[in-house]
């Protein structure tokens, strides 16, 4: 049965239903509703909620809970996520599962509390130190938040790697009808890497200090083989009205839903525009973009930042096809109408150039 819920609350509810028993977080707008939801919901469900003294403490509590075998998560926004980078690097190095939710706001610095997509590079390139990647999931509706949270925990445990869910202030605070009936608790598979006290088995150590450079290098290659597996198996995306399209918008999250609004109008006017919506920002859906470039020449990157997603689109295209860009950083929520105007301009121009 559907409920009208904010993205923040839905994320929390979905996490709990997916077996998340530990939430550690520190308040920051625009994700406070999640922390507050968990303060009530997690203890009800018999789990652990701690409002930590800082974001750094939170990510390290997550690490502790994870190494103890629990499904644990934290959430924050902009500045708070920057503070977690060391901890995320440790989680990746220790090969521990964890889910980190970032309801992105305008930045850099203090910025503001309005929705933005300017933490894309941080999330996809590993804002922390060393060779590692985090899986990055980008929902574009409250329902999709509820759908991706369980997936986030599953992937985190499957690959023993931190997973970032990248939302924004709008997705976090807006309410939409959402239902959770499909979410199942995970069948508890015994984890052979966690610390439980060494009773009846050899003792274990979880660490990322590897003085021997050869060993460390082997560890790095082991990780990067894992990342390659993830790139092969876990790419997710949505395509929308691509078949007959002459221009493909590439956008994720909130920007993608605005793009759909624009496409509706564009189609009314007979402009053949489609959409590629990455759902995993890392691994990035390069293949579909390459595929598409065989039939479509113009790619229109639309994001709520000064230009970050565009790097991955250019890396995917490698010169095949023309990349257009429209960005609105700083917490501005662009309207479908404005996007419609911009795109039609680019569209006709592209047509003219084809002619000549």
């Amino acid at each position, binding site marked *: 049965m559907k409920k009208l819920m904010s993205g923040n609350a839905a994320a929390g509810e979905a996490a709990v239903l997916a077996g998340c028993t530990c939430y550690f977080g520190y308040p920051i707008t625009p994700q406070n509703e999640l922390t507050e939801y968990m303060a009530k919901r997690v203890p009800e469900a018999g789990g652990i909620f*701690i409002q930590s003294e800082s974001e*750094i*403490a939170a990510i390290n509590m997550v*690490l502790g809970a994870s190494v103890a075998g629990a499904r644990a998560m934290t959430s924050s926004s902009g500045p708070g996520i920057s503070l977690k980078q060391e901890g995320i690097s440790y989680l990746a190095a*220790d090969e521990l599962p964890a889910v980190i939710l970032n309801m992105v706001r305008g930045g850099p610095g203090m910025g503001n509390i309005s929705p933005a997509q300017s933490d894309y590079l941080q999330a996809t390139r590993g804002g922390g130190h060393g060779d590692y990647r985090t899986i990055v999931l980008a929902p574009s509706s409250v329902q999709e938040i509820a759908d991706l949270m369980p997936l986030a925990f599953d992937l985190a445990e499957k690959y023993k790697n931190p997973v970032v869910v990248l939302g924004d202030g709008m997705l976090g605070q807006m309410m939409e009808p959402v239902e959770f009936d499909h979410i199942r608790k995970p069948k508890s598979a015994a984890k052979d890497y966690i*610390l439980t*006290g060494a009773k009846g088995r050899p003792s274990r*150590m979880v*660490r990322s200090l590897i003085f021997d450079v050869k060993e460390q290098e082997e560890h790095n290659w082991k990780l990067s083989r894992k990342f390659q597996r993830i790139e092969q198996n876990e790419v997710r995306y949505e395509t929308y009205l691509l078949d007959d399209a002459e221009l493909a918008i590439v956008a994720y999250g909130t920007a993608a839903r605005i793009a759909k609004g624009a496409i509706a109008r564009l189609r009314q006017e007979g402009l053949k525009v489609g959409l590629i919506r990455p759902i995993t920002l890392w691994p990035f859906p390069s293949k579909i973009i390459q595929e598409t470039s065989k039939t479509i020449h113009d790619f229109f990157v639309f994001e709520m930042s000064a230009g970050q997603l565009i790097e991955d689109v250019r890396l995917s295209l490698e010169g095949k096809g023309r990349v257009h860009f429209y960005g609105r950083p700083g917490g501005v929520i662009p309207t479908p109408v404005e996007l419609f105007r911009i795109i039609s301009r680019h569209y006709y121009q592209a047509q003219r150039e084809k002619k000549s």
Partner: protein
Amino acid sequence: MKKVYSRPKSLKPAHFHYCPGCGHAIVNRLLAEVIDEMNLRDSIICVAPAGCGMLLYNYFDIDCLESAHGRGAAVATGIKRVRPDNLVVSYQGDGDLAAIGTAESFHAANRGENITIIFVNNGVYGMTGGQMAPTTILDQVTTTTPAGRVSGQAGYPVRMCEVLAVLDGTSYLERVAVHKPAAIKATKKALAKAFRHQMNKTGFSMVEILSPCPTNWKMDPLRACRWVEEVMSKQFPIGVVKEVQC
């Protein structure tokens, strides 16, 4: 003849990497003895710091996690909340606990987490080569206080037990040392007591151990022990700073 002292079972055969006369080595051994005597091998989960104590997971046949520098109390909190029946111990140096880890140590203590911190106070950053620590004594020369620690510039040596004693969440705080046999025996007792406090869920317990670092103090091991006796323990008085009913 009867063997009256033999190597603790909870220690692996590996040789310590510590410098000659290092207090960490003695603390490690005492911890191993207590683990054996209290039968903790199966239930203890130990958090190792960034610091000279960090490699203890190479020496102990128990479950160990290596923490990021300073975050021992936070990860220990995460572990303990998930596994309240395990004995969770965080082993930390003075830089780790009282500098970068100040907030994590402080608030774990204030929350009254049922964890035990073994706090090895050697007055310097040992692992990184002897820089000033929050616990460095005034006028003490370190690689970052070449003219000695001057309060106006670098502040004062911090008495962590006394600070944490102000917080309502702390249940047992004692300062001990490992520079002579008598002190070593007292240290062992303190560790056992702290663990009993944790088992009885009385709250946050910490044993601060004054510990020689001959290498970075630029002293031979015996002189380092004398310095603990004559100088360090004046700044950091030995004894129970706080204890609630256990």
